[in-house]
């Protein structure tokens, strides 16, 4: 370590600075877009698993088991290399030749669908933590089952699972580094590229690490605020301590 020649200024030089910025931007964009698939889809699947309708429950269970049990890296390769071959010929051609940003979009889809299976499990456990009597009380006053979800069960369930949803969002943010395996130039991939061009491995990866930490730190602080703001008066929320 003593003989390592630190070269921090290289990171501010052209083109490396731009690489870090664009890599960081891609990482954030992948995470946010994947989350915007995962959150609504995962919520719908989590809800499906708690309904009285057996076919819906079955679909939800199959989804969760499939996406949760295949390694994420394998899913990334499956979506990128295998699925286009299985599509009808026209679609496959379009995906392989004409779809814009193929690696980027594939990684967003893959991460979104995988994370949805995790969100679904959180939503399901949140809903199941609510006593059955609450459901009965809602029905007894004339609410439809859908209204009971909307006004009674989900608002409480989401509050219960804020901490674990935060973990899942951080998960999708960090898992976005796997997009480098199909060629997306996100933060980790750009750090590696800088290392290859400049041999400034420590500087490049330290910077990437700091950026990852900064975002996760900000997200955790923000979610604590959310938890505090949505805390039910008279009860205790972890973020309010």
């Amino acid at each position, binding site marked *: 370590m003593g003989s390592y020649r630190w070269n921090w200024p290289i990171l501010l030089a052209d083109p490396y600075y731009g690489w870090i910025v664009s890599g960081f931007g891609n990482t954030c964009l992948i995470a946010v877009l994947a989350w915007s698939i995962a959150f609504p889809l995962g919520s719908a699947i989590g809800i499906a698993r708690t309904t009285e309708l057996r076919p819906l429950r079955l679909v939800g269970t199959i989804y969760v088991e499939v996406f949760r049990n295949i390694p994420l890296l394998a899913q990334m390769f499956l979506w990128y290399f295998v699925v286009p071959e299985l599509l009808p010929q026209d679609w496959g051609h379009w995906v392989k030749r004409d779809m814009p940003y193929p690696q980027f979009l594939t990684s967003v889809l893959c991460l979104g669908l995988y994370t949805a299976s995790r969100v679904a499990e959180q939503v399901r456990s949140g809903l199941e933590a609510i*006593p059955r*009597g*609450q459901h*009965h*009380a*809602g*029905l*007894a*006053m*004339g*609410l*439809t089952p859908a*209204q009971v979800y909307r*006004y*009674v069960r989900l*608002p*409480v369930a989401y*509050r219960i699972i804020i901490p674990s949803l935060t973990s899942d969002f951080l998960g999708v943010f960090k898992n976005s580094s796997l997009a480098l395996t199909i060629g997306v130039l996100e933060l980790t991939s750009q750090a590696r590229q800088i290392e290859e061009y400049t041999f400034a491995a420590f500087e490049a990866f330290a910077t990437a690490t700091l950026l990852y930490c900064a975002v996760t730190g900000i997200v955790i602080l923000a979610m604590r605020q959310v938890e505090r703001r949505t805390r*039910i*008066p*008279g*009860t205790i929320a972890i973020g309010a301590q």
Partner: protein
Amino acid sequence: MIELKNVSKWYGEFRVLDDCSMRIAKGEVVVICGPSGSGKSTLIKCMNGLEPFTRGEVTIDGISVGAPDTQLPRLRARIGMVFQNFELFPHMSAAANINLAQLKVLGRDRATAQAKTDELLARMGLADHATKFPAQLSGGQQQRVAIARALAMDPIAMLFDEPTSALDPEMITEVLDVMVGLADEGMTMAVVTHEMGFARKVAHRVVFMDEGAIIEDASTAAFFGTPRSERAQQFLSKILQH
């Protein structure tokens, strides 16, 4: 008003309700009692279709609860229900709890709903607690909010499922007082309870259940005077011992 005809319910091999028939006329107060596990709560939940039943028929105001084409939400909106554990929605203030179904089920506008809510809270002696959340209220206060929430729908009948069983002794009275007031106003009521004092005071009839079956259905005076079945006699002697 509420009529049960030969209602039976099985959980697999286990029979929870055994051929239960009873009627509650308009303006009548009927107390349902019996040992725990006798099917009282299940029976009262069959009345608004919260518990599906295997056989028999339940009708409310002539509408069949079990028929597949019955709009259960619309029917339930006309029947108030109060639960053992209050079941207020914890993320809503007392007033919001009472407003919810007025807004979302009856389609009242906010001002009308709020006026109704204020009136009911005042009547329950809870005018100062409108903005409090359930966790900030005592059990007795929560149960009175729950009663107000049911009354806000202008129900044609009220179902009470052990409304005082989860309460500390000193809070039981404040809830029973409200229920006595309702009975005096002529509200049609079905009440599952162990409060025999309440039954004696306001009930027109007492229904005694054991092992899922209705063993006795008698006028209040007759029930407390000379209950005919041995099980009811045993039950009463135990419950009235102290």
